[in-house]
C-alpha cells in the first residue's frame, strides 16, 4: 500500500491506511453534488495565480469600458480599501495582533505627504522622494508604537493601539494650537479642523497626474506591487514565523523565534503600507482633514478584512469589492430596492425545499396582500390613500397590495419592528410553523420597505450592511475566502 498508488487511483475504493485520501474525506463530503459540485470543482482547479491575473485584467479594463467618473472613483476607493486591508492583513491576519489604531498610520502618511507638498509649510518636494520618505517614516512610526506594546497581548494591545489612533485624531484636529506644555505660543502644524487644503497632485517623471483615470491606474499599480511583496513575504521565513506567532506565540518562542522582533516587523510593515496608501489618498483628494482618519474608516477596513477572511490575500480583494461596492450601490434608492428584493428571493430559493412550498409561499403572500389591502380600504379608504417610496412601474404595482396611509412614518416604523420580530421568530420555529409564518413576514418586509425604509435610503443602506455582516459572519465565520482555524485561547 505505497502512497504512490493512491494518487493514481483515488476514486472508487477507500484505501485503508492511506492518509491523504482519508483526511480529505470531510472536504469531499462538504462539496455539493450535481451542477453546483461540478462548478465548485472547476473553480478549485484554477490556480490561485490565474485569479489574480483575471482580477488585474478586469480592473485594468474598467476605465476603458466606462467614462463615468463616479464608477472610476468608486474603483479608486475600493483599491484604497484593498491596500489598507492588505496592510492590516499583515498585522491581524498573518501575525495575529489586534491593531485598532491602524487608521492613524494611514492618516500619518496622508498628512506627511500633505505637509511636504502643499502651502502649509511652503514645500513642494518631488513626488518619488516624498513617497519613499513618507512610507519609511510611517513604518518607523509603526515600529515606535509597537515598542512599548511588546509586553502586551491580545486585547491589551488592542486598547493601546486604539488610544494611539484616537490620540492621532485629537492631535491633528487641534494641531493649529500646539504649544510645548503651555510655555510657547501656539504652533500651527496641522491646521486644525480646517485641514490642509491645496495638496499637490503626484508628479511622476515630470508628468503631473490630472485625471481620475491616471490616479486609478497608479492605485492599481501600487496595489499589485504591494500584493506581490506581501505574497513573497508570506511565503518566506518571516511569513511562516508570523503565522506561528499567530497560532501559538509561546510555542514559537520556545522554538527559538525572536517573537518580539517579529511583532515589531509586522507592525512596521503594515504601517508602511498604510503610509503609502495615505499619500495616494491625499494627492487625489487634494485635501486632508482629521475626520478622514477616525473610527468609521477603521471599522470599514476591519469589516472588509474579516469578511474576506483574515490571512487570505484573495479575501482582501473579495471583501473590499463586497463591502465598498455594496455600500455605494445601495446609495441609489432604485438599486437598493432591486437588491433588497433579489436578496429576499435568493434566500428563499436557497433555503426553501421542496419547490412547491416556495411557490405556495409566494402565491400566499400576494393573496395576503390583496386581502389586507381590500379589508383596510373597506374599513376606511383614507388609510390606504398614500403612496409608497418606490417610484415607477413597480411602485404603482405595489400600491395595489400595500395599504399605505398618507402619512406612512408611524405605520412604517411599526411594520419595521414587527418585521424584525418576525424574522427572529422565523429562525427559532419549526418547519411547519415557519412555512405558515413566511408569507406574513414577507408581506411585512415588502410593506416596511415601501412605507418606511425606502424613504430614507441613507439610513436603510447602513441597516442592510449591518444585517449582511451579521448573516455572513454567522454563515461563514472564517470569512469568505478564509480557512477554518481552531484557536487555542
Amino acid at each position: 500500500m505505497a502512497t504512490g498508488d493512491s494518487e493514481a487511483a483515488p476514486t472508487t475504493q477507500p484505501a485503508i491506511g492511506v492518509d491523504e485520501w482519508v483526511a480529505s474525506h470531510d472536504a469531499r463530503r462538504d462539496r455539493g453534488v450535481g451542477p453546483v459540485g461540478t462548478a465548485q470543482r472547476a473553480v478549485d482547479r484554477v490556480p490561485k495565480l490565474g485569479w489574480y491575473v483575471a482580477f488585474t485584467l478586469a480592473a485594468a479594463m474598467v476605465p476603458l469600458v466606462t467614462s463615468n467618473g463616479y464608477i472610476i472613483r468608486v474603483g479608486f476607493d475600493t483599491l484604497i480599501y484593498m491596500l489598507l486591508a492588505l496592510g492590516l492583513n499583515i498585522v491581524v491576519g498573518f501575525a495575529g495582533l489586534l491593531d485598532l489604531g491602524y487608521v492613524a498610520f494611514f492618516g500619518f502618511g496622508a498628512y506627511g505627504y500633505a505637509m511636504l507638498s502643499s502651502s502649509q509649510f511652503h514645500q513642494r518636494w518631488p513626488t518619488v522622494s516624498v513617497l519613499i520618505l513618507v512610507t519609511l517614516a510611517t513604518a518607523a512610526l509603526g515600529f515606535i508604537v509597537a515598542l512599548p506594546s511588546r509586553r502586551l497581548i491580545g486585547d491589551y494591545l488592542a486598547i493601546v493601539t486604539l488610544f494611539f489612533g484616537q490620540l492621532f485624531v485629537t492631535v491633528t484636529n487641534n494641531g493649529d494650537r500646539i504649544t510645548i506644555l503651555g510655555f510657547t505660543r501656539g504652533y500651527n502644524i496641522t491646521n486644525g479642523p480646517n485641514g490642509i487644503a491645496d495638496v499637490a497632485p503626484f508628479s511622476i517623471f515630470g508628468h503631473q497626474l490630472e485625471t481620475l483615470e491616471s490616479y486609478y491606474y497608479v492605485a492599481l499599480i501600487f496595489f499589485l506591487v504591494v500584493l506581490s511583496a506581501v505574497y513573497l513575504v508570506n511565503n518566506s521565513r518571516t511569513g511562516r514565523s508570523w503565522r506561528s506567532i499567530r497560532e501559538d506565540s509561546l510555542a514559537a518562542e520556545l522554538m527559538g523565534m525572536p517573537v518580539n522582533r517579529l511583532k515589531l516587523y509586522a507592525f512596521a510593515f503594515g504601517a508602511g503600507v498604510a503610509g503609502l496608501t495615505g499619500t495616494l489618498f491625499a494627492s487625489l483628494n487634494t485635501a486632508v482633514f482629521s475626520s478622514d482618519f477616525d473610527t468609521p474608516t477603521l471599522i470599514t477596513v476591519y469589516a472588509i478584512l474579516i469578511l474576506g477572511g483574515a490571512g487570505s490575500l484573495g479575501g482582501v480583494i473579495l471583501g473590499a469589492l463586497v463591502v465598498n461596492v455594496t455600500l455605494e450601490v445601495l446609495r441609489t434608492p432604485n438599486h437598493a430596492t432591486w437588491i433588497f428584493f433579489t436578496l429576499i428571493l435568493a434566500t428563499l430559493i436557497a433555503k426553501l425545499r421542496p419547490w412547491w412550498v416556495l411557490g405556495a409561499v409566494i402565491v400566499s403572500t400576494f393573496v395576503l396582500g390583496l386581502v389586507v389591502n381590500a379589508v383596510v380600504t373597506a374599513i376606511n379608504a383614507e388609510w390606504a390613500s398614500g403612496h409608497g417610496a418606490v417610484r415607477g412601474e413597480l411602485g404603482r404595482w405595489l400600491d395595489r397590495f400595500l395599504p399605505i396611509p398618507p402619512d406612512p412614518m408611524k405605520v412604517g416604523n411599526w411594520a419595521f419592528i414587527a418585521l424584525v420580530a418576525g424574522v427572529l421568530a422565523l429562525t427559532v420555529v419549526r418547519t411547519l410553523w415557519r412555512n405558515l409564518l413566511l408569507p406574513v413576514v414577507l408581506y411585512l418586509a415588502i410593506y416596511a420597505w415601501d412605507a418606511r425604509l425606502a424613504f430614507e435610503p441613507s439610513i436603510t443602506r447602513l441597516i442592510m450592511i449591518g444585517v449582511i455582516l451579521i448573516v455572513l459572519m454567522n454563515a461563514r465565520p472564517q470569512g469568505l475566502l478564509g480557512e477554518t482555524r481552531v484557536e487555542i485561547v
Partner: protein
Amino acid sequence: MVKKAITVAVGGACVSAALVLAGVATSAAAKTAAKSPTSVSCKNPIQIGFMGPFTGPAASIGDDQLHWGEYFEQIWNATHKLKINLVQGDTQLNPAIASTVSQSFASNSSIVGVIGPAGSQEVTASAPILKKAGLGFSSGSATNIALTNGSLKGYFFRDVPNDGVQGPTDAAYMQTHLGVSKGSSVMIIDDQESYSTGLAGIVESALKKAGVNVDRESINQKDTDFSSIVAKVTSSTKVVFTPFQLASQTQLLAQQLKAQGKTAVVFASDGSFDSKTFNVPGSYVSFFAPDVTTIKADNAVVSAYNKVFPGGTTPFGAPNYVLAEAWAQAATKACAAGKGTLTRAALRAAFAKTDLSTTILGTPVAFTPNGDVVGAKFHIFKIESGGKYVTVA
C-alpha cells in the same frame, strides 16, 4: 524555487501590462477630457443633488436639513408644473466620502445643481470636483470665511452669513451690553469643529484687542458632561461664549452652570438657536434672522412641517428650505430662457441672480458676486423666563 520564479515572472507581466494599459488610457483620457455640456429636458423632474450628514455623529443636523428640503419639494411639486427631485448623498460629515458623493453627482448627467455640503471641510473637499463638472453648489451651514474668497466665484453660494459677520457682532454686544470691558474675564469654549473654532477665534481676537482676559477652552461634540469645564468658571467670569453646533450641548452647559451656582452668562451662536432645546433663562443667542417662529406666515409653515416630519427642528433646517426654493425658482427661469432645456451652466447663472424678497427666514435672499448672502446681519436674542426668545439687538 521554480514556483517562485514563475510567480515573479507572472507578477511582472501583470504590472507591465497594467502600465501599458495605463499609458494607453491616460492618452485616451486626455483626448476625451473636454466633453460638451449636456442638457436636460425640463419636462422631466429637475434633479438637484442634496449632500449632507444623514447618518453618523452629525445626523441631527443633516437629517433636519434634508427634511426641510424634502418638505419644500412636496409643496413645490404639488403646485407647479416644473417638478424638482432631490437626490440624496450621505456624507457622514467625512470629507473623503463627500468627495466620492460629489463625484457621483458630477458623473450623473441628469443632476444640474447641488444643495450642500453641510460642513466647511466638506465644501473644501468637494469644491474641485463640483467646479470641474460645472455644477453650482450652495450650502446652508458652511460658514468658514475662506470659502467665499473668490476662488469659487459663480459656483459656491450660501444663504447664511459667514463667521466674519457673526463674530464681531457678538463681541461688540458683549462689550456694550454685558459689562465686558478691559480687565474683565470671558471664557470661550469651542467644540473642535471648524464652524466653532473659526467663530471662537474671531471673537477671541476681537476681545483681546479690547484688553479683555480670554480663557479659551475646548470640548468635543461627543462630550456629554461639562462639569469639569464649569468648575473652571470663576466668579469673575462675566460671559461664557459657546459657539456650539449642537444646541443640546449649550443647554446642558448652561444647566450645569446654574446647578453649580455660577453667575456667568451664557452667550451662544446661531447653532444653538432652538427654543425647544436651549431655553435657560438669562442666556443670549445670536442669529442671522428675526425669529422664524414668530412671523405669522411662518407659523403655518412650521406646523405643517411638524405634521410631516415630527420630532423638532434645528436652526440649520430652514436655510435649506430657502435654498431648495432658490434652486426651484432658478430652474424655472433657466428653463424658460432655454426654451425647455436646461444646462448646468445656465442654471448656475440663474441661481447667482437669485432675488427672493420674502423667505421663511424673515430676510430677503440674494447673493453677492463671491457667493455670500447680501445684507447679512445678526440679531441678538435674550432668553426670558419660560424659555421665550426676545429680540434685544
